[in-house]
């Protein structure tokens, strides 16, 4: 593979991410409407914020895309005026980085449901690490903290793992992914036979 991402890859990644950035902003109001119910029900839908990375990677299948997508989605959210302000940028970097590490661990060769779920869990872990630093959630009572963590992990597996994977599957059916994915060696082999 040639070094670095081309402008095409970058722009497509960022556009996907910005689309998610808009969703993230809208999701914020849903998040706050669920929050007053207490008992961390809001954490069940937190996983939506990890979706951009896995989706972008599964669409483009290139190194660095997941990280770039999360950063771009976060900055899109930031520019559109997120009430969380600059923190979304820092969270975005960490979440993207954790997802990216999972894809890297499998050498960017794995594109199945399991890898999407793993990346989702990694992103979730990243966000929890950030929460420990910022929100001081370590000071919550134990039962409350456990509830918080379980809800968030379930939510992220559903949204950023399963949902992201099936979204890309449906996108594949539209043929749009052929535009942007790298050509595989299998496709070269098919050309050779003729």
């Amino acid at each position, binding site marked *: 593979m040639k070094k670095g991402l081309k402008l095409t890859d970058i722009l497509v990644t960022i556009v996907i991410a*910005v689309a998610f950035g808009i969703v993230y902003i809208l999701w914020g109001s849903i998040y706050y409407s669920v929050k007053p119910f207490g008992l961390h029900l809001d954490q069940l839908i937190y996983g939506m914020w990890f979706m951009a990375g896995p989706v972008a990677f599964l669409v483009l299948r290139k190194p660095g895309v997941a990280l770039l997508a999360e950063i*771009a989605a976060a900055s899109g959210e930031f520019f559109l005026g997120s009430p969380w*302000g600059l923190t979304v940028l820092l969270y975005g970097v960490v979440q993207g980085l954790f997802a990216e590490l999972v894809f890297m661990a499998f050498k960017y060769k794995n594109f199945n449901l399991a890898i999407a779920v793993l990346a989702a869990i990694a992103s979730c872990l990243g966000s929890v690490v950030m929460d420990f630093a*910022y929100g001081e959630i370590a000071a919550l009572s134990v039962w409350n903290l456990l509830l918080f963590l379980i809800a968030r992990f379930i939510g992220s597996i559903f949204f950023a793992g399963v949902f992201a994977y099936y979204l890309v599957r*449906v996108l594949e059916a539209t043929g749009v992914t052929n535009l*942007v994915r790298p050509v595989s060696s299998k496709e070269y082999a098919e050309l050779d036979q003729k």
Partner: protein
Amino acid sequence: MNFAGAETWLHKVNPSLKLGILMVLCLVALFIHDSNYMMNVTIGVLLLFLCFSGHSIKHMLFLFVPFCFIFISTSSAMIFFGKGETLWFKWGLISVTEESFMRGLLVGFRAMLFAALGLTFSLTTRPVNLFYSLMQQVKLKPKYAYSFMAALRLIPIMMEEFHMIRNAMKVRGFARSTGIKAIYFKLKAYSIPLLSGSIRRAHRIAVAMEAKRFTDTAHRTYYYEYGFSRKDQVFILYFIIVLLAGFYLAIHFPLLPK
């Protein structure tokens, strides 16, 4: 964001420097564990925002609503469910202690500080200026900067397409259908055309941009040129004063009980 407000000196601070300083402040805020100090710093940043963002009072009050919401929602969870020794109040699972109350305030002020820093930045900086400045001062590669700028330009088109799909669904009578199946259908009917259309458009634009040598790094000239000025020094000085004065006041005139 809406840029209807007047231009102030904050608009003229170098965008990269502004972003850098605000990021540093976010990190500094991580290491502040004293409620009084945190409150003073937050007030300092809010003052900057209120006096110099160049927006009308009405507009700013409107922007203030989410601030209060964040303050209440972040602090309440900590106040009601946090750990602590000195018990003030207990009702079922909820137990308010002195420690949890103070920590709740700290967390609330911190969240408010971040929101204020973010809004101060996004209300006084145009994205285009930021990316031009990042290319010049931070040496961000043009292919990234121009991709970001192009993508931000596509947001209105995405919004328009979203409305188009919604109207089409209305005409066909899908808007009123309810239930799990209808939600699933709607989700698919919105996300897939929006995403695939955006990817196709992004691909076309990228090919055109590559042909026009937007990726060239070596021989670039810039339409907007950025440097540093007096205003940058004022900006840095303001935050140094806020941090020092806040610290002094927190020690000698604490408003909250220790």
